[in-house]
């Protein structure tokens, strides 16, 4: 398993969040892309779209299945990674870097505190695997 970056926050739906003041970048974790297999298409929202925390904001299609991606915290989309339209493989190759999906303006910064740390997330995927 690739190292889970310590400076990011995580959800139980396998999204990661990089918070900078009131803004955040969102993507899916290395574990998520590994479980999905080769990603062939990423469907993302439009700039300006608003989503509540836990609401699906897009989907990732792999050769196996289509999975929804969920909003880690409530907010408004301010940038979308358009590169993924032509290069969905970036989600597999660099999930925490070039494979990022959206940037959002966070509605309520307090919601960030409820997310998992890298250690908590690693424990969570270990538990999931043991089930």
């Amino acid at each position, binding site marked *: 398993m690739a190292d889970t970056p310590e400076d990011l926050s995580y959800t139980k739906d396998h999204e990661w969040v990089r918070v900078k003041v009131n803004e955040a970048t969102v993507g899916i974790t290395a574990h998520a892309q590994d*479980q999905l297999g*080769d990603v*062939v*298409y990423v469907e993302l929202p439009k700039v300006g779209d608003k989503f509540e925390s836990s609401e699906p904001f897009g989907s990732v*299609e792999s*050769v*196996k*299945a289509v999975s929804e991606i969920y909003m880690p915290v409530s907010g408004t989309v301010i940038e979308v990674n358009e590169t993924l339209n032509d290069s*969905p*493989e970036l989600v597999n190759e660099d999930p925490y870097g070039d494979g990022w999906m959206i940037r959002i303006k966070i509605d309520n910064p307090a919601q960030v505190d409820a997310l998992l740390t890298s250690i908590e997330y690693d424990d969570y995927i270990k538990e999931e695997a043991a089930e």
Partner: protein
Amino acid sequence: MSKNRIKKATTHVVQNEGLLFEESRPGRIGYSIPKLDVPEQPDDQLLDRRLVRDDDLEGMPELSEVDVIRHFTRLSTWNYCIDHGLYPLGSCTMKYNPRINEKIARIEGFAELHPLTPARLAQGALEVIHHLEKCLAQITGLAAVTSQPAAGAQGEMTGLMMIRAALTERGNPRKKVLIPDSAHGTNPASAVICGYTVETVPSRSDGLTDLDELRKQMSEDVAALMLTNPNTLGKFEQNIREICGIVHEGGGFVYMDGANMNALAGVTKPASFGIDVMHLNLHKTFSTPHGGGGPGAGPVAVTAELEPYLPFPRISRAEDGMLALDFDRPKSVGRVRAFFGNFGVLVRALAYILTHGDSGLREATETAVLNANYIAHHLKDTYDVPYPGRVMHEVVFSDKRQLKYGVRNADIAKRLIDYGFYPPTMSFPLVVHGALMVEPTETEGREELDLFIDAMKSIDGEASEDPALLKHAPLTTKVGRLDEVTAARKPVLKWRSGKGD
């Protein structure tokens, strides 16, 4: 060494074959038409000039009859079909199609009948549909059946439209449809098309619907529960009566996806455990060709309460004994398909039902369940079974034990092709990671099942000894491992001649 383990398949000559466009030779033709015995008229006097091509059909392939016959015959040898052997594609019920079905469907009066023939001149065809609808009503225990929907998913939509119509008449169409997490992907799609939002009901660790969760989720907003029984893990919902009771008490309907009816037909009737509406996949349970050989048919059966909402026209018998089309159905959801669906499929299904009879259908079901459990039993020590215990007509394995060698479900499936089998369904149901879903059906004898079991065990051996071999499988086929990822990421959807670009 590994080659000796492959008992069923061998390598034999497979001829290369180009596209018809590439095999074209100028001036070659496959027809001869006698000379006109009337004066010839120039095209532009018979047709509007704009409709006449002036490029002499450039680019159209020119071939003789034998060229065309050989082309398609060679291509057919690249294919694997149910007539070659076991086709264990879980959830699809790929059973052998008895040839008598084909013979009956080819009777001239059925095969050549024009769909617009007036009812009084099409009594035989109407009799077939009417009789089939009665047989299906008897098999499901429900009051009435429509044969119109052309596939399972269209059946789902038709069923939900009827539920919506009935609830609307009661005063509130409601907002939600509940669907267990092991459901077929078409279920939520049908619900959304009918204007409902979907809420997932989680399954318990034994793979069955969680009753406590269902009770919590059931409310006055819930129009229906859609469930597949047996579910996609091959498990019979043992609390099905209670499940239906919870939904009925809350004023909702229960829709059953009949895709897995091959585990029930002739043994139990869904109406007896509380189902209000369901579809049947004739191309699965009733042995009309499935897959590329389709088309499908997804008749829908309903309770007497929902009968008024069935699509029109209904076939009814008049006093003089003649069958007539009844369009006077004010509550009907309307037509869902032209005429009566895929009629040829209906003829085949009726032939299947009548040649089997009550006891034959029961025996087919029992054998289907026996075959699945036979495979489950013999492979349970080799492959992980995420939801252990007795199964119905299909069994779900996972690649968990082979993953330690880096071998995934796709590698096992591809290697099975070298062993002479079609692969099982992969990565479904979604609740099982690395799923391999095997449905043998009743039409396989013990020898074929044993060959399959041997192949699966042998592949497990290869996984530990030579995982790289599995990563490159299939090795003996016309085309090797295809790059499915690039095909999906950068699809090329159009053929272009080598000329120019």
